[in-house]
């Protein structure tokens, strides 16, 4: 017995290191395997409750459509870990930290610039790639971040494209406003858009001047004062950067205060959302949105549109679905090329993205050194009978613009 024990001790002394190494390897193996293979765990952060709940829920439709399409085009499916930012910057930050702690290997989100900025800080600190679906404030990709990528135009890009498309619309209709009142939400997105406008307007040779700028709280419960003030300027048209709930409130006040501007020119969300069309019915017709959109002629656009129509009949495909879907497309494509879920390798793969078969207009998805896709192009869309039609640029248009819009009191 003692011989055996001694022999065993002798053997174990030698074997101990080998054994320990084997055990360590065995224990570490799942982590290495997890880092190299298996499904990519993607933490999707969206404002699914609070003031932006409607838009956050809408974005999530893009998430629901992604995996079946990825499977059909030979991309790996993703394991989605969902988190609600509650339309709150601090909640967005803590939910991002929790998702990473729970094993998320890549983050996607968060519709809003303020929330996306907070998530970007967390992602950079933890070394986890973050693909922004929708957020336009320029500073997000000006910080020198290595793990943050944005497949959405910045505020100046949106404004620049919007002004060019507006000129095209005015030329097409033969009618243009001489003055506008500019109303914008006072959050990160609205403020960055408002800062971009004065720089770009003089260079764009627009037919109108801004009579007054009115900023307001996006969570405001009553916008009657704002519309009274706007109406008092006597401007021909309304230039807006808004969200969803306030777009509905603004329209209600326009009708109640009997002011029908010749056009509503939106450079943000709200006016094309399904909930806007559904809530306001015929009163939703007419506004023009100059926003990031999709190229209806692209193969993947048709596939995404078909999948949306099948799963959610009656819902118009919009920016929220498109750019959330594309953020996940970037993740799946990077995972396929990186052949690993290691965050550093994934970030490198995202940086090298070159997707030409995509949904948004322009040559495709690729990122510059700052992590920004600079190839994106916007479109002008108009609400028409509960549907959305593209009216500019001409190459991507499927209808002629109706401008000036029909006055509210002339609608049955």
């Amino acid at each position: 017995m003692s011989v055996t024990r001694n022999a065993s001790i002798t053997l174990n002394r030698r074997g101990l290191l080998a054994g320990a190494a084997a055990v360590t390897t065995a224990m570490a193996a799942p982590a290495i395997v997890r880092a190299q293979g298996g499904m990519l765990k993607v933490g999707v952060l969206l404002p699914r409750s609070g003031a932006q709940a409607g838009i956050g829920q809408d974005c999530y439709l893009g998430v629901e459509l992604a995996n079946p399409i990825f499977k059909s085009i030979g991309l790996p499916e993703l394991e989605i870990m969902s988190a609600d930012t509650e339309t709150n910057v601090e909640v967005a930050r803590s939910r991002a930290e929790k998702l990473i702690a729970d094993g998320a290997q890549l983050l996607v989100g968060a519709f809003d610039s303020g929330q996306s900025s907070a998530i970007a800080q967390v992602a950079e600190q933890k070394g986890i790639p973050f693909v922004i679906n929708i957020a336009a404030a320029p500073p997000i990709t000006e910080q020198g971040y290595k793990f943050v990528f944005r497949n959405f135009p910045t505020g100046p890009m949106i404004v620049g494209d919007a002004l060019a498309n507006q000129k095209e619309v005015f030329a097409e209709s033969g009618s243009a406003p001489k003055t506008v009142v500019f109303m914008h939400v006072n959050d990160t997105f609205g403020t960055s858009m408002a800062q971009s406008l004065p720089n770009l307007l003089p260079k764009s040779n627009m037919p109108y001047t801004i009579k007054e700028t009115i900023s307001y709280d996006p969570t405001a419960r009553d916008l009657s004062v704002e519309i009274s003030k706007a109406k008092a300027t006597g401007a021909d048209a309304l230039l807006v950067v808004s969200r969803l709930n306030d777009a509905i409130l603004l329209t209600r006040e326009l009708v109640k205060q009997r002011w029908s501007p010749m056009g509503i020119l939106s450079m943000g969300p709200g006016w094309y959302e399904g909930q806007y069309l559904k809530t306001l019915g015929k009163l939703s017709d007419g506004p023009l949105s100059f926003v990031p959109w999709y190229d209806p002629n692209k193969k993947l656009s048709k596939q995404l549109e078909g999948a949306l129509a099948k799963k959610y009949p009656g819902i118009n495909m919009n920016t929220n679905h498109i750019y959330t879907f594309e953020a996940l497309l970037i993740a799946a494509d990077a995972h396929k090329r990186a052949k690993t879920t290691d965050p550093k390798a994934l970030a490198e793969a995202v940086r090298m993205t070159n997707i030409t078969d995509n949904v948004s207009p322009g040559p495709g998805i690729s990122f510059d050194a700052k992590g920004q896709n600079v190839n994106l192009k916007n479109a002008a869309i108009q609400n028409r009978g509960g549907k959305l039609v593209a009216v500019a640029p001409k190459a991507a248009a499927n209808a002629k613009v109706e401008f000036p819009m029909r006055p509210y009191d002339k609608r049955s």
Partner: protein
Amino acid sequence: VPAEIYLNVAISGLLTGLVYGLMALGLSVIFGVVRVVNFAHGEMMTVAMYIAVVLFARLGLDPLLMMLPIAALLFVVGYAMQMVIINPFISRPEHSQFMLMVAIAIIIVNSLLMIFGPDAQAVQTSYSFDSYALGPVIVDATKLYAGVAAILVAAALFAFFQYAPVGKAIRACADNYTGALVVGLDVKQLYALSFGLGAACVGAAGAIIVLLVDVTPPLGPAYTLLAFVIVITGGMGSMPGALLGGVLIGLTEAMAGLFFTPSAKSMFAFAILVLVLLFRPQGIMGKRLT
């Protein structure tokens, strides 16, 4: 800015302020008699708003017509809450009462989230987009009806406390608790009635305000805060003060939005509160504390 715009905005602020006042009246009644600060006040109003939304969506019933049934329902809820949950806390320290009411508020918000989800829900009546033009002045029809309804409910409440024997008993109870016990008033019952009346007020306000504002579960805390601003400005425990405070805050928000920037309109409401606390801590119509 044309002169009629000032008038339009002032009328709009006044009408909105009347509804705010009705909401704050409930808080004032409860605090004035029961001496419990209802931190679930705004949340109770969102419950009333959701009841109005459901009745409108399912049965097509106009919230203005449903104002009294909803107020009656909230009265029962308030009465039961006071009898079962709050009465045991009446003699406990204020922080216990505070925690109880905050807990009730959180339970209400989360229950509403589970039942109705986070999306905003609205009531769109046949007159939702109507307005009256009196020369150059345009008055929002919904706000006008809401303001008139708020005046009627407030007048009924004042009349109840002034002329009804039970109303007088409640006032006696609020003025002198020991005296009320000595003369044989059932104070526990009167407290429950008072809480019920406060809840009924907030029920009526909820049915009215749902015509003006889309309801979401997180709306409650914002209205609780607003109700506190109003009653502190008007005078804690003073019913006319609550109504005056509501009108003052409604008007201040509206005019500040017009004169300065709409982004800062809430700031001016809080500025009024700070001024009142500095120069008349008991509120505009409140009794000086001894």
